[in-house]
């Protein structure tokens, strides 16, 4: 009897020692991330911003953006925490609604450029030869022209073609990803070139796996940590570019609010001097959000990609 119970406890102990095997890579990374206070504060701020922008306007009594000529350019008060703009709309509500657009554009254009960049980069590295040449020369071409002028030209074309304001948001996303993918494709390609030569890739060839499996099941998972880091950091960049474009009236156009076109108020000397509540809040929103994203992205890099540590 005693021998039986003894063997049972032994196997139990044995199993306990191996159970936490599953997905421990990610769990370890998460654990390390939690200990990084700076990155966590960035993350909490991003979550706060997302919640405020997407849920906040639902609780606002001014969400309909009605024009109120009786209450134009009012200073912040208890009724309007951040005052009202020149049409009498609540600035706080508009700020949050603008945040929705800015964050959506940032995240969506990041997604598109990451998908585009990683697929093109991976394909270039995997097939090499002529495919590589074509993809990388196009990327080089796009990288040689500074991004901002291209964006300006495209924005000007959009205005010329009289694209309706509600579609411009989507077109701006595409424009930003068009600028964003070449850098990413280069990064992915360089990583893939080294992964391609690793022994497990030779093993995959020997197993007779097809190209799709080799690329998407074997190679890309190896660069996921890198992609997460780069993607996070590029959201900040996309938000900034969108703001710049909208500030110059070439991105998303009013009445659709974005942080960029709200700061446009600072272009007007009277608003700049007399109504700082019009342009300081969107400026602070852009600044803090981008800083938070960058801090979080850096923290992620330390956690997911320890080799890249300076």
């Amino acid at each position: 009897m005693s021998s039986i119970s003894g063997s049972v406890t032994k196997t139990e102990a044995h199993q306990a020692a191996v159970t936490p095997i599953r997905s421990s890579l990610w769990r370890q990374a998460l654990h390390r991330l939690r200990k990084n206070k700076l990155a966590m504060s960035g993350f909490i701020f991003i979550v706060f911003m997302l919640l405020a922008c997407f849920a906040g306007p639902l609780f606002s009594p001014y969400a309909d953006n009605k024009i109120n000529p009786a209450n134009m350019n009012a200073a912040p008060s208890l009724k309007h925490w951040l005052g009202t703009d020149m049409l009498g709309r609540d600035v706080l509500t508009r700020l949050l609604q603008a945040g929705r657009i800015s964050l959506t554009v940032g995240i969506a254009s990041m997604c598109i450029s990451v998908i585009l960049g990683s697929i093109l980069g991976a394909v270039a590295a995997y097939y090499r030869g002529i495919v590589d040449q074509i993809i990388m020369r196009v990327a080089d071409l796009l990288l040689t022209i500074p991004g901002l002028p291209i964006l300006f030209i495209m924005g000007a074309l959009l205005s010329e073609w009289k694209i309706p304001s509600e579609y411009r948001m989507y077109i701006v996303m595409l424009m930003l990803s068009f600028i964003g993918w070449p850098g990413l494709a280069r990064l992915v390609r360089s990583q893939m070139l080294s992964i391609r030569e690793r022994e497990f890739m030779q093993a995959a060839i020997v197993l007779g796996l097809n190209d799709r499996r080799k690329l998407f099941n074997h190679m890309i998972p190896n660069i996921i940590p890198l992609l997460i880091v780069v993607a996070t950091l590029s959201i900040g960049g996309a938000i900034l570019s969108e703001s710049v474009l909208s500030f110059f009236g070439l991105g998303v156009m009013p009445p659709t609010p974005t942080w960029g076109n709200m700061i446009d108020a600072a272009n007007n000397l009277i608003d700049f001097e007399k109504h700082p509540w019009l342009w300081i809040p969107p400026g602070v929103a852009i600044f803090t959000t981008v800083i938070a994203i960058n801090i979080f992205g850096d923290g992620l890099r330390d956690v997911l990609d320890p080799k890249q540590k300076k």
Partner: protein
Amino acid sequence: MKNVIEIDHLSTYFYTEEGAVKAVNDVSLRVREGETVCIVGESGCGKSVTAMSVMGLVEEPAGKVVEGKIQFDGRDLLSLHKNELRHVRGNDIAMIFQEPMSSLNPVLTIGKQIMEPLMEHQRMNKKQARMRAIELIEMVGISRPEQIADSYPHQLSGGMLQRIMIAIAISCNPKLLIADEPTTALDVTIQAQILDMLRQIKADSNMSILLITHDLGVVAEIADYVIVMYSGKIVEEGDVVELFENPKHPYTQGLLRSKPIMGERQEELYSIPGQVPNPLELKESCYFHDRCEHCMAICQTKLPYLRDVAGRQKVACWLYEEVVEHV
């Protein structure tokens, strides 16, 4: 017995700035059904490149299979289309590498990596493939197969990983298993277990094995037929018992003498004097002549050819050429 694979006059060259390196130079060999053939030789003798040529792993333009035929199942592997070759690899011919640690993808679970060839070649769905994967893990003697299937390579030991590699290799019931130094990275006890397992699997499934090694102990343990390579050429081949008892080529004799003998103390282990010749400077001669104790005039000017001596044993050495001996 039927031949599973027939390699005829295979030559694989690598092109360097100083010239072409004849890594494999006119090598012919065959592996019969259910037979284990070992290729032995020191580093750089072309044994791995032979295997790589069979698997189509020699990458142009760095290297090229310049001539030869590799007949497998009535087809010449060298002239197969890329896609046809892909279906032979993994399905009909499987390969195990030397380093189990780096041959498995570090970011995929063990289970996934066993499932892939099953889904690719046997057209299994995910569920069937996972069941089979767990069966295979059990088959190679690992307990708790389900947990192992969900773990990552870095969580297992080298011996376990080599078992997993074998599980992957045999997953599609290949006719031929090529094992490139499968036990070199493992310690001796694990090595013995792995060899036992290979022998067991071979007996169960009538699979043929082409094993590449530099370890004569491994050869003695598992081989039916041995091929000794030197500087890209076969210098001697024969049934394992004949070859070990009566080695003909001075190189084979030297190799066997340089093996420690169990239970015997030796002051110093014998080693063959000299070095492997630089593959770039090979001239028309026996490539072993400057290290050979029995070197004759002809050895320095003419390349010996492989000739039958007794039974299945063949040797490429002028010592066994009667005509020459009288010169």
